[in-house]
């Protein structure tokens, strides 16, 4: 089968690593990249792909099947819509858009022009998440009663400085929109729809316009409930980044950051230890508990994700994170932010 012809829009901090990964994806023919900053031309040359300063020129001149948008959030909808109108399938980095209304416009444009959207929640392609989903949805924990998530770590001062100071601002910055959205998407993917949220949010440590800490409760459609504790200003490794080792630039102790609790068993994640009572006549807090491990293959989630995008374009697969799905993750995440502001629970 012929390779899928892909164009990349945005060859900056995010787009450059994407380009390098795309070159490794078997199904993908990375044809060209567009980037307003002409200095990035050397990256394109190095990778042997064409370079455009103007994305409109790229999508007009090149025969492409899909585009990957690695752009600031506020450009997702306008550029995504322009590409959809040209019949190009869309890969949009998370969050799908800065607001639900913009997400809706993008989704509608994709529908009208009969193109697919895949939203870049790459953790859905982590083998750890895939396994956790299989265990939970496959009933290996019995009925899910609850889940707890901790995302606690220390971002260095430089994270919020210089060109990155937008991360301090309410518009698009802060750990809820940047980081928590991943946890929410993981939860939705593994445990199902979230229909109620409550959050206490605080900025008293960093004193930035955005939050630095949040304590959250959730209710799932299934009836399960959960808690999420989030902070980016404590020296901790109890977080996705500090336990999974999936980001080689960050330090990890391979501990646990999620707990899933079911009526028949619980699961420690990402160590993937399932706890249950092996003897049905000896069930209860005074009896020994058995621990079962799982072998998880180590795979690069980005390669899997982009190769999935190519197969979506070929019509072989349906998007793992559709536009509607990405929109819902955004909606839940924004509701958490709003609950923190109003002090009231929000039913979705």
């Amino acid at each position, binding site marked *: 089968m012929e390779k899928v012809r892909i164009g990349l829009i945005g060859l900056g901090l995010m787009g450059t690593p994407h380009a390098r990964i795309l070159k490794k994806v078997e199904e993908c023919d990375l044809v060209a990249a567009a980037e307003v900053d002409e200095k990035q031309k050397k990256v394109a040359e190095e990778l042997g792909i064409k370079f455009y300063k103007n994305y409109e020129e790229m999508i007009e001149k090149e025969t492409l099947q899909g585009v990957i948008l690695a752009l600031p959030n506020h450009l997702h909808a306008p550029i995504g819509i322009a590409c959809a109108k040209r019949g190009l399938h869309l890969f949009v980095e998370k969050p799908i858009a800065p607001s639900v209304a913009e997400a809706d416009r993008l989704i509608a444009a994709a529908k009208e022009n009969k193109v697919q959207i895949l939203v870049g929640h790459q953790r859905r392609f982590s083998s750890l998440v895939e396994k956790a989903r299989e265990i939970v949805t496959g009933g290996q924990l019995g*009925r899910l*009663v*609850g889940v*707890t998530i*901790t995302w*606690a*770590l*220390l*971002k*260095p*001062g*430089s*994270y919020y400085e210089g060109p990155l100071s937008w991360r301090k601002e309410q518009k698009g910055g802060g750990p809820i929109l940047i980081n928590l959205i991943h946890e929410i998407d993981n939860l939705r993917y593994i445990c199902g729809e979230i229909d109620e949220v*409550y959050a*206490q949010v*605080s900025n008293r*440590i960093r004193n930035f316009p955005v939050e630095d*800490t*949040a*304590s*959250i*409760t*959730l*209710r799932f459609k299934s*009836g*399960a*409930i*959960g*808690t999420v*504790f989030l*902070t980016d200003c*404590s*020296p*901790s*490794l*109890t*977080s996705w*980044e500090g336990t999974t080792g999936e980001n080689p*630039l*960050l*330090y990890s*102790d391979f501990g646990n950051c999620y*707990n899933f*609790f079911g*009526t*028949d*068993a*619980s699961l420690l994640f990402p160590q993937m230890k399932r*706890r*249950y*009572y092996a003897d049905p006549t000896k*069930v*209860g*807090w*005074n*009896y020994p*508990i058995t621990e079962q491990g799982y072998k998880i293959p180590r795979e690069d989630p980005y390669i899997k994700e982009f190769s999935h995008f190519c197969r979506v374009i070929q019509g072989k697969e349906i998007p793992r994170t559709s536009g509607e799905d990405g929109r819902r993750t955004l909606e839940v995440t924004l509701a958490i932010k709003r609950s923190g502001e109003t*002090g*009231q*629970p929000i039913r979705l």
Partner: protein
Amino acid sequence: MKKVRLGLIGMGMIGKLHAETMSKMKDIEFVAASDADAKHQKTATELGTKFYQSYKEMIGKDTLDGVVIAVPNELHLPVGATCAKKGLNILMEKPIAADLESADRLIQAAKENKVILMVGHHRRHNPMIEELRRIVRGGEIGKLVGVTVLWSLYKPKDYFKGPFAWRAQPGGGPIRINLIHEIDNIRYICGDITRLYAEVSHEARKFPVEDTVSISLRIAGGAVANIFLTDTAPGNVGYEANTGENLFFYQSPQNCYYYYGTEGVVTFPGMKKFFYRDPAKAGWQYALCEEGIKIDREDPYTRQIRNFCGVIQGTEKPKIDGVDARKTLEVALAIQKSGETGQAIVFG
């Protein structure tokens, strides 16, 4: 100094534990024990103490300095008030009373009769909890950012059967029986709770009483906390399952509390402190240092009785008096109410 003369009222599960504790203490006089059920005579005899079927007879006949009261919650007020009128100092099992009004009346009765009212939140006497309090309040982990508490122990079926059927009814569940300990620990270690929201569920067991709770709290000073509790999942994580304090419960080496500060994190009961040694290398890309905290283990129940005696002799202050314990009960009841109403609760 003259030995303190103590009596015990109620010889159920926790009463028996008090009896065994007091019988082993050389520096006190365990004068007598009482229980409406005559079958407990045997235990009293074995432990070398007098037995009464009527506590009124016991406090009428014997000269006592104080009583330990371990009767069902709704009897806390009547039995406590009767003892107070007799001028007896009181160590009342937790919770202080069945409701806030009864707690107020008991506090009043103790005040009027000038007797001590101490409440059996025994965990405050655990040296590990005391050390945690010292670390948090002493600023050793910087400003407190947040706390996470996990409690997932599986109550066996017979826990709810026969004479214990009340445990499946409203008021007999894990909020008042188990969660109240967690609330008291947080209050003791960090300070008062100013705001809370709770999701309460009974979906798993389908009993009238709750089986799973997820909570978000705000603590005076601004830190936030999450508590997740379930008594219907094989998690084996929680104070009883991890501290080794009561070996009736199967033990797993896991942490059930995390205290997150700006300068460090402390885990409990692992009693390890995590921090970045070099402030120039503080952040998620750097290795985290780990330091053990040395603690001499000591039985909290013995220390509790010793504190009670010290208070009677006027040499010590109670670790937790009636007014303090009433606040713990108030928070536990507010959690129940928040779960029922779906509203956040703010404390004045």
